[in-house]
């Protein structure tokens, strides 16, 4: 009886060890995949893009366009700046020269003053790409990979 009890306890311990090992492996796997996702997202490069036939637009001009002080491209085409949901903070800091919060506050002041029309909000990368393809004056922010795949003109890459 004692022997059976010992064998039972030993088997139960082995089972617990196996279960613990399996869960540990699962947790490790999840951790690794999460980190991979995090770093891949972190490392994703964004680009300010335009219609393939659009002229080059330097960063100073992009700032003016997004702040409503420039309404036409160098070739005279009416410009339509767009902002995708979740535009990275880096875009505002590097291109506009102010934080995301200040950018939206800036536009609230311009709107109250009766100023220009703010950049157009787009829901998804897909919508931004479609708009840019259809409109020579449209400018948007999409991932570099997607911009290359769609053959859009990359104006600036934001890392």
């Amino acid at each position, binding site marked *: 009886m004692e022997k059976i009890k010992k064998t039972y306890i030993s088997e139960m311990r082995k089972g617990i060890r196996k279960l613990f090992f399996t869960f540990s492996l699962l947790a490790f796997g999840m951790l690794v995949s999460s980190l991979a996702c995090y770093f891949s997202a972190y490392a994703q490069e964004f680009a300010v893009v335009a219609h393939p036939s659009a002229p080059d637009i330097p960063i100073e001009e992009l700032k003016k366009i997004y702040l409503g002080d420039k309404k036409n491209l160098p070739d005279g085409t009416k410009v339509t700046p767009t902002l995708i949901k979740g535009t990275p903070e880096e875009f505002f800091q590097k291109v506009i020269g102010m*934080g995301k919060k200040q950018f939206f506050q800036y536009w609230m002041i311009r709107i109250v003053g009766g100023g220009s*029309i703010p950049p157009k*909000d787009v829901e998804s990368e897909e919508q931004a790409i479609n708009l840019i393809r259809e409109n020579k004056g449209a400018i948007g922010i999409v991932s570099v990979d997607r911009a290359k795949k769609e053959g859009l003109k990359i104006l600036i890459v934001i890392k």
Partner: protein
Amino acid sequence: MTFLTKETFCMKDKITFKFSIAILRRVFLNALFSLIFFSISARAQEIEGYMFLYGEVGADYISDVEIPSLGKRGGNIAFSLGTFDIIAKIAYGKAEGFVEIPITPLNTLYVEAPIWSSIWFERFYFGYNFSELFSLKIGGTYGAMGYLTRNWHRAYYLMPIVRRPIITNAEDEGGVLPLYATGVEASGETSIGEFRPGYIFQVINGNYHFGSDDFLDYDKERTFLGKIYIRRYLEEIGISLGYDPFRIPTDEGESIYVQNLIAGLNLSYVKLDGLIGLAEVFIIRDLQSKTQGGGGFLILSYPIFYADEIEFRPFLQFGFMDWQEGNPFFEKLNEGAEEVRLNYVSVGPGTVKHFEYAGGIRIGISPNFAVKLGINYYDIRDEKDLYYISVRAGWGIPVFGR
């Protein structure tokens, strides 16, 4: 059995005629609205615009307020219903339309006005942008003088301050500058690197206190306002000039002719994540009496720290107003709303010789919401001083944008 007499027949004709008119009107309106609807649908891709709602609520402790109609005087704490504004703009190609409709509760202690009069067009104009250098607007907008009025006039929640300086008050609050501008405006800008030099020129209905309102120009005297400026985004250096002739009616049934020449200077430094410094000064000289008055203000504000992206931005404000004895414009306004054509005035100092000192903090919770706390102290010459302790919550939200 009903006999059709001449009268009943005529009545029937009248009813039929009215009915026909009603049908015609309905058909015409339907056609018109259908036309507008189909035009908009057809051109929807080319139409841009936005609509925003913004407003403010709060409470004040007022040190000493006089309510003549009730014969009461004393300290008072009051919650204010604040303001609620609808702002919308539509642009189609080079044409644009803009409207701002505030819904503001009027102070019934001072005003005997129907409730609908608390809803009006604050600004309402149509414009056409011929080029960057020349745009034309027709309708009602704000006077070209200075910076704060034109840029931040009703958006209290965006300003770092709690109360506007008295010199920037609207005419119906005893303000001395031409703020409401109904007429024609030409404006333009050009680019020199990051800087944008520009101009605004307005020909508007005469003086709002004595000579005109949104609809009529009683004394047929036009007001001319202009400003030249150089701006860089929200920063601006500007020089304003204006000519505002009008007649002040006297008790004897005659009038005093006033020719106000207005000059203003504004230095406006606005870094939304740094220093905000606004300085404006105005001189108003009556060419008839050869006397002058004026005032100005200085506002300084800087964010001292951020907590979870909430910005804590203290501010300091200083302002003044003064005039020479014998200036009919300032003296008449100083007599109060009862004496002038205006039939309403806000609680608080109107046109008074004063110094104002204010301080407080703006807590920017998001670009759409802010809470402010401040104290405004008015050192009023020859009268009891006055102060307000105020707390305000302001907001602005987009309804649509395309």
